[in-house]
């Protein structure tokens, strides 16, 4: 049954809400009955299904400077309006506004359980921050095309209200959310892959079925200046464990780090250490763990004065199909730890 009489709440910043420009960006949230400014387009777009019952206007700086507080204040204002839907913005390329729209949509979804949508230009920082959790319709950089954007946002939320399936990002005009969904197709995978390649060769548009990961470019760290007095640590993502794996290292996924004390050890002894990794044959490393983590050679180099000191801790994880975000977190936490422990450089061995 199609619901009529849907109650829509619209969120606008100080500019679109008609209060003023930057000089009004500090203003706290205000409730207005019915639609305001571009809310008229929204009101017209939901005719027949509902109406804009209220508009919240809030200054961009106010929201940015006390986000959680602002969200709570707005939720308190919005709840008595008994909204069925929230539409925020669209924010186009306005960064603070985009973040406010994304954060508010997420909050009403999570805390009020109602569908929400917003719209932004692809470079708006709100896109990367919120697109996985919120439907963000793609807009141009400049303020134009409001009727089309609003009708795309409305189409999405109405589908959510009616519990209808939401189509692909390209079809419905929103930023991909990173959700993989099984679909059946007339063409099998081989046929679809060939069709994609042919389109690519012809220079025709095509849509990848899976989003390719984007890797960071990291500026190289400055070199270790004085190696003879430097502390160098060994680390690995090759799944080094103590025999029996008492620390219960996961053999895949780089979910967290383990560290082992190698103080005073001349080498890694296969009676004390082994390899627990689901991505390669661990036999040879378990026979001689120095084949993965070269404590023996590093200890020699330390004794010869080539390096100042081999760090007492060896840190290990097991990579294998680690998600980018896990790998990043583990790497960053390792770097922070080692830096705090006075390490100057790290040799990470990887299989």
């Amino acid at each position, binding site marked *: 049954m199609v619901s009529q009489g849907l109650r829509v709440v619209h969120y606008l910043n100080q500019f679109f809400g008609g209060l003023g420009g930057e000089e009004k960006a500090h203003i706290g949230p205000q409730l207005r009955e019915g639609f305001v400014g571009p809310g008229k387009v929204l009101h017209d777009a939901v005719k027949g299904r509902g109406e804009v019952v209220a508009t919240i206007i809030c200054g961009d700086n106010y929201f940015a400077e006390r986000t959680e507080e602002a969200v709570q204040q707005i939720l308190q204002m919005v709840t008595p309006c008994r909204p069925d839907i929230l539409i925020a913005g669209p924010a186009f390329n306005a960064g603070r506004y985009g973040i406010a729209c994304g954060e508010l949509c997420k909050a009403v979804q999570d805390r009020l359980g109602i569908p929400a949508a917003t719209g932004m230009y692809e470079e708006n920082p709100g896109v990367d921050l919120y697109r996985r959790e919120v439907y963000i319709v793609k807009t141009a950089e400049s303020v134009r095309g409001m009727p089309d954007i609003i009708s795309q946002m409305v189409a999405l939320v109405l589908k959510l209200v009616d519990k209808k399936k939401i189509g692909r990002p390209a079809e419905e005009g929103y930023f991909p959310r990173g959700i993989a969904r099984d679909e059946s197709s007339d063409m099998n995978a081989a046929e679809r892959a060939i069709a994609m390649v042919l389109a690519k060769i012809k220079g025709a548009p095509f849509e990848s079925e899976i989003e390719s990961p984007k890797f960071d470019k990291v500026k190289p760290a400055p070199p*270790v200046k004085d190696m003879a007095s430097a502390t160098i640590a060994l680390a690995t993502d090759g799944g080094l464990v103590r025999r029996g794996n008492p620390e219960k290292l996961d053999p895949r996924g780089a979910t967290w780090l383990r560290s082992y004390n190698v103080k005073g050890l001349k080498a890694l002894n296969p009676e004390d250490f082994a390899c627990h990794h689901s991505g*390669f044959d661990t036999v040879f490393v378990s026979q001689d763990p120095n084949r993965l983590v070269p404590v023996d050679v590093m200890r020699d180099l330390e004794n010869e004065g080539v390096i100042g000191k081999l760090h007492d801790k060896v840190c290990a994880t097991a990579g294998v199909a680690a998600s980018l975000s896990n790998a990043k977190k583990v790497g960053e936490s390792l770097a922070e730890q080692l830096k705090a422990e006075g390490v100057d*450089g790290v040799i990470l061995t990887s*299989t």
Partner: protein
Amino acid sequence: MTPVAIMVGSNRIVPGSGVIHPVGNVDLGSNEEKNLRRTIVQKAIEALHTELKEQTVFPRPSV
């Protein structure tokens, strides 16, 4: 796996001696294996000591 290291953005990369023993080689006798390990580790030390502007692969001298 060096191409993977390059793809994900590692800056100082030293190719190892095989997936199943990055700093070893079961086909060598234990002394030679340790020497091989030493060469690779020394290359890594050299990499740590080298000023870089961009991703660099430090090839091992052939043993």
